[in-house]
Structure formats: structure tokens, C-alpha cells
């Protein structure tokens, strides 16, 4: 039987000790003497969040298929455990073997959102691994980052040995083989990094130097050795039908946020919303094979015992075989009393029919994400959802018995005027009015419309990467305008309004488009006690601001400054296939309010066709 790293006394003193014991169903155990590489895969947030992440389940399965690699998992210890580990100097450990991370060959950290950066430092710190990559020796693991925030890795550059730019299924085995050779050779740590830098998609920050202009903008970024390429090319799986996917995902004992089988139906998105980073990063759109999905759905349900299955992708309605897949799942799951959870589908006759069969209409709500209140602004952001489409969908749904609607918007989008904000309230009102057009006997009491707004953060590799971001005060003023306007509406009692925190948005903005000069401030914030910044009860804005000011970071330089077209961005050394020329063109079209067609209607020549797969190479019928 496995022995645990922590004593009963410690485990009984913390909340949810099951977070730290491993041994879940389908967790992979190996003999550590029989493997060459020990890889710890980390999601830097609490267990229940981290265990819900599909990417780690895919890579965990992929690595463990190889006999010479044992991949294990680790998550952020919650504050209570953090304190115990620090006080008693117990090194952070992997769940499966319960061995300290510092003895591993690799520590892989997925970087899913900016607000986890201090948690990354916590992981390194508790593991007793030096925070700065340059302090590490042959005795320490290589720390490698991946995930969406790795597309601007610069704020974290000093803490990582390597970054993996792109989809993990493609180059990890090459990297592992190189590592095995290096480990046997006894060569210096730097030698491995130089070899790794030659693997497509691998970025080694220490092999590049950045120079700055007097006004603070980047002058240039150059490799400082011949092994490092000037451009790091994003790696993508060109054929999603023939790649790794877990048949036996690990099933946690604790109720995870995503407590179900997750079936990824496609990657990428054909839509091209101009604010959306995922929509650009994951181009080209690639669908998974229907036969493969059916097969995996069955096997994953059998191997996990989950009572629910969910489809996962961006804009799922665009999956071309969605009807067939959903019909199959309903036939397969119905008799077994397995629930089907649908991601937010475009509301139309098809989705309403499906939803009424798999959900309790009385309890479920409709979700629309118009993102902007006016048609003008929706054209600016290239969100091809019109008021007519929304009202048609909502009308059909109301007649079908629904009475709850959720609406998602962003405030602070480029070119936004007061009228655009007020249109958010007016759109909610129009939907409410549409509800009360339904004859009284057919409807279910009052309707409930929940309007939620988040604040817009310009992200790298989007057409809005040049955009100015609002200040905290501007954001809050905009939320106030919306709130006030909602109160003016006739059906205000049917409309509820929520808005996001502004402080945390500003921080996200700094980190998202930050450069290497942000690193020391992240470290300082962590040392001051910032941790779990994505948890509003833990977020300490004043400590962050203190850290920025002490480290000489000018917040406005990173947030409210509109960038010139020729500015060198910290992330310019990465090639995501989508060209800078295309992004510039889209930025200009946004200013003119011109819509760009989706990838299936017409190719807009973004550049992602170089990857040789997906929608770019579908036959255009």
C-alpha cells in the first residue's frame, strides 16, 4: 500500500485532506526504479479546479503510455496546507508517489490564466526549487510552462527554464528523448537548454536578450546563441482524429468543478471575434472524427462511472456533426440515466429541441453572449450575433417554456460610447418584452434576465493587441452607466445586473501584455503574501500595487497606452501561424466597423493554413 507524505495529524488538521492523498481511480502508479524520466504535471490552482482541466488529463495519459516516463500530478496546496508545509519545511510532493517534486526530472506547469502567476511561485517555493531559473543546478528539475499564457511568457521568463508553445501532443516525446541522452551524458544544464531550443515550439528564455528604448518600449529581442531560433513556431496537431486522448481519465474522490466525462469535439474556432485570444491561438479549426468521439464517449463512461458527459470546444454549434453526435449520446445515455451537459450552443430550433430533451426546462436557462449592446459595437468586435437572431431564439425558447435568460457582455471595448453601454440595458428590456408577448397561459410567471458584464482586457495575438485598456475608474463608471440604465427600463424588476471586479481586471491587463520587467514585481507581490489571486476572497490589490511601485513598474504603460502599429511586442518572437499583417488588417477593419466572414464562409487569409490541416483545407462546397 502507498505511504503518504503527510502524517495523519497534518491531514486531519486541514480542510479536505483528500486533495493531498492521490490514489484516485485511474491514477497511474509505476515503479520509479523502472522509469527514466519522472515528470510532475502541475495546474497551479486548488485540486478541485486543477482536476477539472482536460489538457492535463490528455498529457498525463500521453506521457504514461511510455514505459520510460512516469507522469504524476500536483496542485496548489490551499492556504491551510501552505502554512503547514512552510512551518514544518516539508517539500511539496506529487500525488501519485508522494515523492518531493525537487527530485523530479521535469516540473510542467500549465498556465491557463494570468491570475495564477503567484501560485506558480508558491509551487516552486514549497518544492524548494529556486524561483529563478538561473539559480537551478543539475540537481533540480527543469521547469517548463505551457498553455495559453505561454503565448506571452515574458513576465514569467526568469522563473521558467523552458516554455512549450503550442499543443503538447506534438513535440514532448522529442524533448524527452533529448533529455534522456543529456542525462546520461553528464553534460551541463545549459547544454540541454541549447539542444531543447532547437526543438520546434520550445522557447528557452535565457537564450534571448531584450533591449529597450528610452521611452520604455522594446527596441529588440535577439537570441544570444546560435542554437536559439529567432522565431518560435507554435505546434499544432494537424489531424485530431489520430492523436492522444484519455480513455481512462483520473476520477477524483472530491467533487471537482468539472465532475463529468469531457469530450473535446474540436479545437479552434471559425468565428474570429476580435477580442478573443483563444480564437486566434488555436487556429486552424480542426474537428474530431465522429466515430472516434462515439467510441471514446462509451469507453470513458465505462471506465470512470461518471453520471454525466459534457462536450467541450469553442463555439460548439459549429461542429459539423453535432446533430449526429448529440442523437447518439441521447440514445446511449438515456437508458443508463447518464446526463448530457451541453456547452453554450447557439440558440435555435435545433438546440432548443435538444435542450428540452436533456434538461429540465423549468430549471435551465438560455445563454447568449452578445458581448456588446449595440449592433455597431458588435460589428467592431466581429461578433456575428444580431438582435434579430437573439430575439428569434429567445422567442422560440419562451414559447417552449423557458423563462430564464443569461446575457454576457464586455465593457471597455475599443470605440465604446455611452450609447453602446445603454444598449446593453435596452437589449435586456427588449428580450423581457418579447417574453411578455407570450400569452399568459403559456408562460411561467415572470421572466428572469441576468445581465453580466466583464471588463475587456486586450490580449496578445488578437486584433486588439494594440488597444488601449480602460482604467479602473473608467471601468466602474461604465458599469454604473449600465446599472443606471437598467433601472430606467420598464421591466427592470425582471432584470438583474452583475459586474466583474475592476481591480483584478487591471492586474490581468498588466500581466497579459507585460514584458520581462514585470517579473520582479510578480515575485515581490508573492513575497508580500499574494496568492490565489483568482479567488476574490484572497485577492489583495494593495499589495500588488505596492509591488509595482517598489519595482518601478508603471501600470499605465502596460494598460492604458495605445500601441503604435510598428511597436515591437514582447511576444513577437512567437509565430502562431496567424500573421501580424492579418491582425493589423483586422484592427483597421474594427475601427471601420467592418465585419469579417467566418472561416467556412470565406477564407480571410489569416495565415493559419500553413499548418496544413483543419478548416483551411476542407473542401469549400
Amino acid at each position, binding site marked *: *500500500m502507498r505511504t503518504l507524505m503527510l502524517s*495523519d495529524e497534518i491531514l486531519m488538521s486541514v480542510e479536505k485532506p483528500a486533495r493531498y492523498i492521490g490514489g484516485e481511480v485511474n491514477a497511474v502508479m509505476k515503479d520509479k526504479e523502472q522509469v527514466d524520466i519522472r515528470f510532475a504535471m502541475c495546474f497551479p490552482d486548488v485540486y478541485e479546479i486543477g482536476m477539472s482541466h482536460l489538457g492535463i488529463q490528455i498529457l498525463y495519459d500521453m506521457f504514461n503510455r511510455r514505459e520510460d516516463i512516469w507522469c504524476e500530478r500536483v496542485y496548489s496546496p490551499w492556504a491551510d496546507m501552505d502554512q503547514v508545509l512552510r512551518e514544518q519545511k516539508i517539500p511539496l510532493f506529487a500525488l501519485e508517489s508522494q515523492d518531493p517534486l525537487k527530485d523530479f526530472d521535469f516540473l510542467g506547469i500549465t498556465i491557463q490564466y494570468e491570475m495564477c502567476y503567484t501560485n506558480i511561485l508558491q509551487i516552486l517555493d514549497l518544492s524548494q526549487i529556486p524561483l529563478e531559473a538561473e539559480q537551478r543546478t543539475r540537481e533540480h528539475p527543469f521547469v517548463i510552462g505551457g498553455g495559453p499564457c505561454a503565448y506571452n511568457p515574458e513576465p514569467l521568463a526568469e522563473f521558467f527554464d523552458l516554455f512549450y508553445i503550442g499543443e503538447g501532443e506534438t513535440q514532448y516525446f522529442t524533448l524527452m528523448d533529448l533529455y534522456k541522452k543529456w542525462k546520461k551524458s553528464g553534460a551541463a544544464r545549459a547544454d540541454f537548454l541549447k539542444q531543447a531550443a532547437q526543438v520546434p515550439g520550445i522557447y528557452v528564455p535565457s537564450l534571448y536578450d531584450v533591449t529597450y528604448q528610452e521611452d520604455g518600449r522594446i527596441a529588440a529581442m535577439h537570441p544570444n546563441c546560435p542554437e536559439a531560433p529567432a522565431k518560435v513556431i507554435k505546434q499544432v496537431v494537424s489531424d485530431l482524429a489520430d492523436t492522444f486522448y484519455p480513455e481512462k481519465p483520473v476520477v477524483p*474522490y472530491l467533487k471537482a468543478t468539472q465532475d463529468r466525462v469531457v469530450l473535446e469535439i474540436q479545437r479552434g474556432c471559425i468565428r474570429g471575434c476580435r477580442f478573443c485570444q483563444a480564437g486566434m491561438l488555436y487556429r486552424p479549426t480542426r474537428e474530431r472524427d465522429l466515430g472516434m468521439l462515439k467510441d471514446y464517449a462509451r469507453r470513458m463512461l465505462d471506465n470512470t462511472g461518471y453520471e454525466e458527459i459534457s462536450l467541450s470546444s469553442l463555439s460548439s454549434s459549429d461542429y459539423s456533426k453535432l446533430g449526429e453526435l448529440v442523437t447518439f449520446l441521447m440514445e446511449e445515455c438515456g437508458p443508463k440515466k447518464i*446526463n448530457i451537459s451541453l456547452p453554450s450552443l447557439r440558440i435555435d430550433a435545433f438546440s432548443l429541441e435538444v435542450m428540452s430533451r436533456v434538461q429540465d426546462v423549468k430549471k435551465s436557462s438560455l445563454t447568449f453572449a452578445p458581448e456588446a449592446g449595440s449592433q455597431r459595437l458588435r460589428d467592431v468586435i466581429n461578433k456575428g450575433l444580431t438582435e434579430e437572431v437573439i430575439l428569434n431564439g429567445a422567442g422560440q425558447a419562451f414559447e417552449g417554456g423557458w423563462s430564464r435568460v443569461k446575457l454576457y457582455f464586455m465593457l471597455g471595448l475599443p470605440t465604446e460610447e455611452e450609447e453602446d453601454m445603454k444598449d446593453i440595458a435596452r437589449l435586456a428590456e427588449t428580450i423581457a418584452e418579447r417574453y411578455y408577448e407570450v400569452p399568459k397561459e403559456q408562460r411561467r410567471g415572470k421572466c428572469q434576465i441576468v445581465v453580466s458584464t466583464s471588463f475587456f482586457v486586450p490580449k496578445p495575438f488578437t486584433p486588439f493587441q494594440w488597444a488601449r485598456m480602460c482604467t479602473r475608474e473608467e471601468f466602474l463608471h461604465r458599469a454604473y452607466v449600465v446599472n443606471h440604465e437598467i433601472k430606467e427600463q420598464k421591466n427592470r424588476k425582471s432584470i438583474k445586473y452583475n459586474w466583474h471586479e475592476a481591480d483584478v481586471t487591471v492586474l490581468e491587463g498588466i500581466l497579459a501584455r507585460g514584458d520581462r520587467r514585470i517579473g520582479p514585481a510578480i515575485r515581490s507581490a508573492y513575497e508580500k503574501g499574494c496568492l490565489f489571486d483568482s479567488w476574490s476572497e484572497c485577492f489583495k490589490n494593495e499589495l500588488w500595487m505596492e509591488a509595482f511601485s517598489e519595482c518601478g513598474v508603471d501600470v499605465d504603460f502596460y494598460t492604458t497606452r495605445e500601441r503604435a502599429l510598428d511597436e515591437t511586442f514582447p511576444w513577437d518572437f512567437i509565430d502562431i501561424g496567424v500573421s501580424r499583417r492579418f491582425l493589423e488588417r483586422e484592427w483597421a477593419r474594427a475601427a471601420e466597423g467592418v465585419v469579417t466572414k467566418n472561416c467556412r464562409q470565406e477564407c480571410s487569409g489569416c495565415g493559419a493554413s500553413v499548418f496544413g490541416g483543419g478548416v483551411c483545407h476542407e473542401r469549400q462546397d
Partner: protein
Amino acid sequence: MNVRIKFQKTGPLRFISHLDVMRYFQKVIRRAGIDICFSEGFSPHMIMSFASPLGLGLTSEGEYVDIRVGSAPSSAEALERLNEVMAEGMKVLSFRRLPDSSKNAMSIVAAADYQVRFREGREPAEDWEERLADFSGQPEIRILKETKKGRQEVDIRPWIYDCRVLDGVIHMQVSAGSVHNLKPELLMQSFGAWAGIQIPASALQIHRLELYADQGTEEEHRLIPLEELGEDIGE
């Protein structure tokens, strides 16, 4: 048909809460392909009820869950199928058909056997073994017990059916279930207070051995292990 499953929960799984054990069993039943019955309604749930929640940190080889099934394989096959899909630390020990008239496990639990050990290095310096015999041998043990109605003085002596020490391990048989549930932690705490010995809960390692139904009377108990109320299902 109603079936009673006896299982053990040991090793690291002692840190899984009762709620998580319930969720775990729902998945086990699906993985093993047991033909369980569901409740009616829009969100049907499995017809499944546990005998008695086991506290976090405790281990057991006498846990019970009753389920209703449409059809059942033989006991031997069910054991094989269930244990095939169990996590390390959980094991099904028996799978038995209950008579139709049988009440569910939760309503009939009357007593439990426990083994209580002091963790390594946590044994009191005092000569506690003899004093424990003196303590449990008293005609009456009045303590303050937290109940739903507040703190109440109760006599726990009638709920202690047996309490003895063998090779440094305390074996106790105590009242359990919905009427009088005497937790071993409370018994040890009361003993500590009586004897003037510090016995923090963290010093104890508690293992449940068995759960019983009582087919006797208030005066003369006749305790039957819950699994004996069912019969093995043949091939």
C-alpha cells in the same frame, strides 16, 4: 431485489469523507455494470443507502451499503466485478440478497465493534490500561454530551457493551445507530477526563470492525452482524 454490500475502507482512503464515499460508490456501481434501480422523476438517483457514516480519518472493515437492483449476478461474480474496479484501500467483502421484508441497514444499526490504538509515540505515560477497566466497570458514567438540544448530562454506561485491552489495543463494543450512538472518540475522551489523562483525538487511531443489528431486547441484546441478515446469491 435488495442487496447488502459489506466493504472495507483502509489506507489512504481514510481521508475520504462520507459524502465522497457515497459519490465513489455511485461510480463503482456503474463501472461494475451492476443493474441498480433508480428513483423516478426528472433527476433520477440510485436507490442506495449507507448504514452508518464513518468519520474522517477512521478505517473500517465493517461498512455497509444497501442497494436495490433489477437483477443481480451471483455473489461471487459481483464481488469479482466490483473489486476489479475498486481503488486501493476499498474492497467489497460480501454481496448478499436481503429478504423482501428486511429493513434498510441505516434503520437497524444498533451496535459497532471498534479497535482503538494509540498512535506511535502518543501513548500516555500513565498506567492507563487498568484504569480503563476501572472506568468502564463503573455502574454509571455520567457525562455532558452535545446533542441537538444543547448539552445534556447522559449516562453512557448502558451503551458500552464491552471494553477491554488486548496487547495494548482497546477493543470496544458500543451502542451505535440512530437511537444511542456512542462514538469511540467520546468514550476515550470521557475516560481521559475521568482518569486525569490527556487523550487528544489526534493521538488515537480508530478502526471499525463490524456493525450489528439487535434482535434481542433492551435487557438482553442479541447482536447480529448486518451481513448475516442476507444470503449469498448462488451461480
